[in-house]
């Protein structure tokens, strides 16, 4: 990280702070395109990945059970690149990082919601699962709509309805973390 970046995020004085990229940049990526899977408000982490699967950290196993208690057929019908579109407070509940890991592992390329629960938000950024907040997209996109997302501009396009929505920009602090390739994935000893 350049000195300038470190100063910008106000951590220049911290000796042992170093963020390493994990090679998954959300920006600079080619646009995402996939079918929308709709969910309502307050989708919680118990629905995303029930506790009966928390005795593993294997993404493949977690992916197979993604959203199982909200829609038991989800993992079998989701296709690589598909997009989850949900309402308010997506990911509420537990701190389990297994939730965004399961979503990413089952092939979902991005989650669009009106807003996210805060721990899920952090976790998604940390593991490099793209997430976007847009009330308009959340309300307008219907199940099975084909959606195209440009993470560089934050533009969400509904190809079925020919509509376009602008996602809320990430705070500058977060953009730097995302640009570094997912938050604090690896922190190296000095």
């Amino acid at each position, binding site marked *: 990280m350049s000195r300038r970046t470190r100063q910008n995020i106000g951590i220049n004085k911290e000796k042992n702070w170093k963020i390493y990229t994990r090679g998954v940049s959300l920006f600079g990526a080619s646009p995402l395109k996939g079918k929308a899977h709709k969910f309502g*408000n307050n989708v919680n982490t118990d629905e995303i990945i029930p*506790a009966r699967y928390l005795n593993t950290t294997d993404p493949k196993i977690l992916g197979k059970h993604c959203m199982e*208690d909200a829609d038991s057929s989800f993992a079998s019908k989701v296709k690589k690149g598909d997009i989850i579109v949900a309402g308010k*407070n997506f990911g509420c509940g*537990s*701190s389990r990082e297994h939730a965004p890991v399961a979503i990413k592992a089952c092939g979902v390329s991005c989650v669009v919601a009106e807003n996210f629960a805060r*721990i899920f938000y952090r976790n998604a950024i940390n593991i490099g699962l793209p997430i976007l907040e847009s009330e308009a997209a959340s309300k307008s996109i219907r199940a099975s709509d084909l959606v195209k997302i440009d993470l560089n501009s934050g533009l969400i396009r509904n190809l079925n309805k020919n509509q376009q929505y602008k996602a809320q920009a990430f705070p500058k602090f977060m953009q730097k973390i995302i640009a570094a390739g997912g938050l*604090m*994935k690896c922190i190296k000893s000095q």
Partner: protein
Amino acid sequence: MTITEKILAAHCGKSAVTPGEFINARVDFALGNDVTAPFAIDEFKKASIKRVFNRAKIALVPDHFTPNKDVASAQQCRKMAEFAKAYNIKYYFEQGRAGIEHVLLPEAGLVKPGDLIIGADSHTCTYGALGAFSAGVGSTDLAAVMATGKCWLKVPESIKFIYKGRLKKWVGGKDIILYTIGKIGVDGAVYKAMEFRGPTIKNLPMDDRFTMCNMAIEAGGKNGIIAPDGITDAYIKKGKCYSSDKSAVYFKTCEYDVSKLEPQVACPHLPSNVKPASRLRKINIDQSFIGSCTNGRLSDLRIAAKILKGKKVNSRVRLIVIPATQKIYLAALKEGLLEIFVKAGGAIETPTCGPCLGGHAGILAEGEVCVATTNRNFRGRMGHPKSFVYLSNAAVAAASAVKGRIAHPEEVGTPQKGTPRPNKILQRL
């Protein structure tokens, strides 16, 4: 500044912080459990980090699936134990010397007023009851904290909750927080600090304060916090006490008169779906669970024992009681509380989160209904996706176990003349 802002400012070397600002905060204490730590350990090792930031400021508590429920869980706990040994972690709590992390750490005096605590568990917000800033994060965040002793945080706006009025019999912290979540919703405090205050809180015993702050996350809160006072001081002498300035700026203020509040119950499948217990008398139950980081403390067991003494659990119902820590288990044993539960027909289990998150030791079958003193009643939370969880305080859970349906504690018989009110018992602890 608010108490939350003051603690955050003190931990990033600034004289003041404002909501919305991003800070890189110094962490006083970090924790992980057998669900979240294995992920964190993987990340930590991938980075080939040689040492943790401070071996005496990290706690690893195997509590969710312990005693190990299956081979996969055993492997996860093994990973934790080996990591703790390899990195010389001071506070690794082996089974039999442990308990549920959020009850254990305050009990062990490891978290104190004014601290900044980061835990890879959503109920880390519990320690706000001591006047600390504590917030839950995920595993990668924990890995970063273990490596650097730092955590990035966005300074939250605060919501002031003022409670007035003397609580009725059988009503405590659980009822106040359920009522509050019922009013503001499960996203009513997303990204916000929930500051609890007012005359009712001033008289609220420590255990009830833990219960309230524990459930701040169920309203989406970043942290729950109560400024330290005499009750805090009687609980722990250490730490630095902060309080909000009169000029502090709040996102909003909510004021509630809780003098008429009845025992509250959150109905499936959201903690905000709250109704008075007395309006749910038609709900038959299959299981009653008393335990968890929300209500598995000694005062909860005392209240339950008071109701269950000389009574029998309804023949259709399973009662499961789990003291939250070994210390509470022993105290309950010495006080004869465990004998009361066993004689009533209840099952007592060793300290674990167990059934609260549908882990083990009390899973629900399809169609089953459970009254639980826990914190979440999401679909499938305690077992089958078509099971139903009602959240309540320990008195309602005990009374419901006797009646075989959701019951107000008064229905099971009130304490005899001269018996102190539960609130007074709590204050004496």
